[in-house]
């Protein structure tokens, strides 16, 4: 029987805000698989999954043979289109890093520095070496305009178009904000819909909420 160390839920909550729930889950799943094999990954999903549903989904994907996150940027770049300013709501570093590699340097990027988890935002921004500016919920609308896009990360999409997003998205994107941005883009970071109740997330109608869901 594979034994996992105690306190993995605490460990995940320490970094889920700074790396993103999906990105940190990938780190955890890979490390567990490398040290103890797939049986331990299944146990991780069982023990920590109810608390972190995103990890459960990623562990399930791992066991189904998917061993790398899908971070193809083509569709999201297409969705951003000709926007010259992108405000990112929420953080998933595995996806954001890849996007910044592909986006032209002329596209300015801002990150809404707000999270339900503890985050060292200075360290987050240090990783982007000046490429990403810091905004908060009070100031991100200064970035609004006809050439601006709002981007967030979605955690799976069900057949009825329900998608899980961070509660931060609902706080940021009210009726007043929606009209101020050229496009509202959701980038799905999970390969399949969530099986469990979306703890720490909220469900929205993807068709009504976003101009683009990729």
């Amino acid at each position: 029987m594979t034994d996992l160390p105690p306190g993995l839920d605490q460990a995940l909550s320490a970094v889920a805000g700074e790396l993103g729930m999906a990105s940190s889950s990938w780190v955890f799943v890979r490390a567990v698989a490398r040290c103890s094999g797939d049986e331990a990954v299944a146990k991780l999903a069982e023990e920590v999954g109810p608390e972190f549903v995103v990890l459960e989904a990623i562990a399930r994907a791992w066991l189904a043979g998917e061993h790398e996150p899908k971070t193809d940027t083509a569709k999201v770049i297409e969705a951003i289109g000709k926007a010259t300013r992108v405000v990112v709501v929420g953080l998933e570093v595995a996806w954001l890093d890849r996007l910044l590699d592909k986006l032209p340097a002329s596209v300015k990027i801002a990150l809404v520095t707000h999270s339900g988890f503890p985050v060292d935002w200075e360290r987050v921004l240090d990783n982007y070496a000046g490429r990403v500016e810091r905004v908060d919920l009070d100031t991100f609308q200064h970035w609004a305009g006809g050439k601006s896009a709002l981007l967030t990360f979605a955690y799976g999409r069900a057949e009825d178009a329900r998608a899980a997003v961070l509660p931060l998205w609902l706080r940021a994107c009210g009726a007043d904000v929606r009209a101020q941005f050229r496009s509202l883009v959701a980038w799905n970071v999970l390969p399949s819909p969530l099986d469990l109740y979306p703890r720490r997330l909220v469900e929205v109608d993807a068709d009504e909420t976003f101009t683009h869901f990729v």
Partner: protein
Amino acid sequence: MHAIGQALLPALLVVTLVLQAALARYRLLIVMSGAAASCLAASMLGLGHAAQILADVPWDVLVILVGLGLISEVFVESRVFGVLAMRACRWSGADPRKIALLFTVGMYSHGGLVNNLTALLLILPMLLGLYKLVGVTQRYVSWSIGLLLVACNLGGAATPIGDFPAVLLLGGGKMTFTAYLVRALPATLVGLFILVTLVVFIVRPERGMSKSPVSAAITVDTMSALYRNVRIDFRMLLPAAAALAAMIVAWMTLPADKGWTPELICWIGAAAALAIRPKLGERLLRRKVDMEATLFLLGLFVMVVAVRRSGIFASVAKGLVALPIPPIAQLVVFVIAAGGLTAIFSAGPSMAALLEVADVLAQKHPPNTVYVGLALGVCAGSSLFTTAATSGPLAQALTERADLRDAEGNQLRFGFVQFLPVGVMSFVVIETIAVGYCLITAR
């Protein structure tokens, strides 16, 4: 009047220190009010007006502390501490024993060069984050963070620019940079070696923790992800390091009696380090000067100067040298008393007050022995209780904020009680070294 002053002014100092410790949230207000009351009392008793008291304040010490604090901030901005902490995690393989060892040695090295509070404020949250990943116990938290704080104190006492007591010796011209360094550095290194051996290899804080390769792998991978693109800004780090190195060379070689006083060297060095990146320098000057520490020390100096003018320190020194014991025993009593007083009143007040007594003892013993013995005694006292040094309450607050929990979900704490075993052990070790140093070098 003289007798009233000898009773009233020390009483004002003690009441102020007790009040500021008891009501820490009003610390600055209490100390500044105590300083104003001391000035008023001294003036009314004919012991000197506020202008005369202010003229006696060791401004040179404040200049050195502010200057070194600003250089520390440049180091912080260069991201060197964060990157080093991440590398320490990788080198240790997330092994709890190696983590404790590496961070302890790192904090000692840093404490000798720049402001250890700045480093603690940056390193401790990172270390606590690391603890969340590793999964730690109350025993580990108490001993490892306790050892870290003692290492800060030892590092601060190791060099003449490490912490306030040593800076006071340098700034006041009691000892030269080199004279202090060659004596205090080896003594504190011995202390560090003994304490690390006792804690890391005998107490073994990690005892009872699960040694899981999964936990280690997750910790190392996560730390690497957190710092995946963070790089040290060498354009910021190198000029600041060069300025600090130049300052140290200047302190060791330029003659103070020709005007190259320690505070002037620090002032020029800090200005040069900030001027290399003017935008950053201006921002740091406006926002990052540690006003709390500076005002606290200013208020403290004012009170100590007023007490000195009452003649009480001279009386205490006279009483000490009149004790019917051999002179070397008087010195030992003084060093032990320095530790005890520091444990109660903290390093700043104790050092400022005891220096007056040390000057008298320095007439009967080699001055370097007395001053280094005093600095080591103060270091021992700073390490006894969490309340004896600013780093203690800071570590307590940061640990509570981190909301660390053990495997059973119990909150892990770091406070007075948890630190006490580390404090008692450290006090005994460092005080023994201080006394031993005096006994060896006074002959």
